[in-house]
């Protein structure tokens, strides 16, 4: 069965690339433009993995991550956080809030794909 991936990012210009990349890897892709939409889609679609941007309108990535990880029903959902904030403290915070992996922008798409694969194969 194909893995479902949710891309949550408000930047259209990265979403295009990520969408293309993930589809090309054979995943089923859905998209959320802000934090609120991300939560709703996660509950509705139950994706295997969320590519979650930190800086989003309405609710930021940290909040979304926290809510997902606090909900036992969503335990299976993996979270890969993407952030333009390069500070160590934020990486630590993301991981502490339960993110499964963390990547700092700009990242290599190849590494991203590898990271996604390794997270999904861990199921």
């Amino acid at each position, binding site marked *: 069965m194909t893995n479902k991936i949710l891309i949550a990012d408000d*930047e259209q*210009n*990265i979403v*295009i*690339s*990520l969408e*293309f*990349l993930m589809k*090309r890897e054979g995943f089923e892709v859905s998209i959320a433009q802000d934090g609120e939409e991300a939560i709703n889609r996660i509950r509705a679609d139950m994706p295997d993995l969320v590519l979650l941007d930190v*800086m989003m309108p309405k609710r930021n990535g940290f909040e979304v991550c926290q809510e997902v990880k606090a909900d036992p029903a969503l335990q299976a959902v993996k979270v890969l956080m*993407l952030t*333009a*904030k*390069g500070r160590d403290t934020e990486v630590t915070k993301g991981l502490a809030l339960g993110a499964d992996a963390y990547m*700092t*922008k*700009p*990242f*290599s*798409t*190849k590494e991203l794909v590898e990271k996604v694969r390794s997270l999904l194969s861990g199921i």
Partner: protein
Amino acid sequence: MNARTRFIIAVVVLGLLMTGPFLLTASLIWVGTEGASRALLVDTIMPHLPLGTVITVFGFGLGVIVVRNLFRQYVKGLLRMSEQQHLMLGANRDFRIEEKGPPEVRALARTANALAEQRDEYMRDVEQQIAEAQRTVVEEKNRLAALMSELTQSVVVCNLDGRILLYNTRARQQFKAMSDAPAVAGGGELIGLGRSLYAAFDRNLIAHALEGIRHRLARNEAEIQANFVTTSRSGQLLRVQMAPVLASEPSGAGETLREMTGFILMLDDITRNFETESRRDQMLHTLTEGNRAALANVRAAAEMLEFPDLDEDLRIRFSTVIRDEIKAMSERLDNTANEFADALKARWPLEDMSGADLIAAVKRSVENKLKVPTKLEGVDEGLWVKVDSFSLVQALLFLVSRLSDEFEVREIRFRLTGAGRLVHLDLIWQGQAMSTETVMNWELEQMSVAGENSPLTVRDVIDRHDGEIWLEREKVRHRAFFRLLLPAANPQEHVDAIEKSEHDGRPEYYDFDLFKWSERSHELDDRLLTDLTYTVFDTETTGLNPAGGDEIIQIGATRVVNGKLLRQESFEQLIDPKRRLSPESIPIHGIQPAMLVGKPTIDKVLPAFHAFAADTILIAHNAAFDMRFLQLKEAMTGLRFDNPVLDTLLLSAVLHPNQESHRLEAIVERLNLKIVGRHTALGDAIVTAEVFIKMIPLLADIGIFTLRQAREAAEKSFYARVKY
């Protein structure tokens, strides 16, 4: 027994000595002879008796004369000398004893005179030394005060109670900026000799810092200062350095710990530094994190383009992403560079200087060192520049020296004009202009003028100012000039500097006698009048009837601390009474209605005055009148003026109960004071203060030393007047 009695006794004794032996012998012979021999004796002696008596009387007379002379010369002479010596001891130090009389008395006079001479010499010596010592102390104090007033850092010295003993001009400006009512009291309610520092600073903060210093003192640490950063009430960020003032001697025998008697605060307003810092941070943030997302977009899109299975439509979309993102990044970079231009500037410490001062310095330097005549051609006096004046003068001097050496320029003109955030400093000369290469060489050559070499080049100096320099030709007038672009300084910051120079004389910004103050040792009432702090004030009003709606239109006040009038620490404010001035009152106070337009209202001014007068004794002439106006406002402002009050009118009645008039003019005349600037509130307040200062010793003469005594005496005189 006085001299006269002794003289009489001496004369009597002389008479007895001269007649006594003869009479005794005669009596014995008379008793020893009888009958015929006694008759023979009488016959023999009787004819000689008159002669004997004459001789005896004559001898007695001689004897009296001798005794009298001796008496005059020795007894009376010594008495006189003793009186003269008393004179020398006391009233007239320069008096010398007249040398007359017998040699012994003269010798005594000479010795006494010599002793007096010696004493005078010693006294002169001691007096001279005292005067010398006093002069040194005064000089040192003045030097300290001068030094303090020139410091660019704010310095405030306090005793342990937090009372201000010394502050400098800079501190005054800083406190002014910290004041809630800067326009009204000019910060005077926060800073002033004898004022509490805690009006401006949190008491706990200071206590905490002092505690830290005490700990470090106890542990004998080398670094005993305390540093902290605090915010003022008006939101400035202050960096405070606190250092202890230590007693000159350890407090007890065997004790190594030196006692702290006060502390010094050095204040730096770092609000602006801090703003610059945070802007710098913000800029770094924009340039790093702000670009991360964009870079991620570009990189991802670029990597997508590498996939061979991309259809045309997607390829165009990825290319568009790359183009748009890069364009946005370029714009962001430009904007950031513009917006943060100030923060990006090199941090060479530049000082604010009046442009005219800078030009004057360059002019002096050129004329003295290079002997090249100079002229001014339009120097805008109002301009201020941010410069490193030393290196800049050097650079200009270097340029002039090259012009004079290589192009035989005989006269240099200076021009200074403003251009927004920049200032043009032009160096103009008549004659040809040099080639651009020459100018370039001059710019990049290490400077050397009149035997002085510098490691810097003109370019370095210009860069230091973040400025520019170029050569311009004025072909029509057959002349050329170097134009230097320099950063302008904000002229608003220099208002205070001008204000400062308006004050005549050296300001009383210090009073070390306040070190001796200790609040806890005295109740206010039992403190000496000489030790208290006073706010002497006067009000001008729309009329004489406060209850009938008359209002205050001006408050003037000054301070008296330790018996000294502090003119610099005055308060003067016109007040909009929100009602018409009565025409009769205008000639009295000289305030025209137009002068009150736009002035603050009483509810704005009273809080500032209340703060100005905090912790002091209020003094006014006919205080009841002024106090009535203040008290009528208590309900409206919620501020109670419950300070102790002294009235110079009542004190005058205490001092001179039999005088008819106790009007201020009459008292001024009686006490022989000079009046300046009367009939403004501040003018009258200052006169009242001078009257009060003059009264303090007069009150002491009649046994009034403390505040309590003064108040009680004034009350009595008041009741006396009422009964009258």
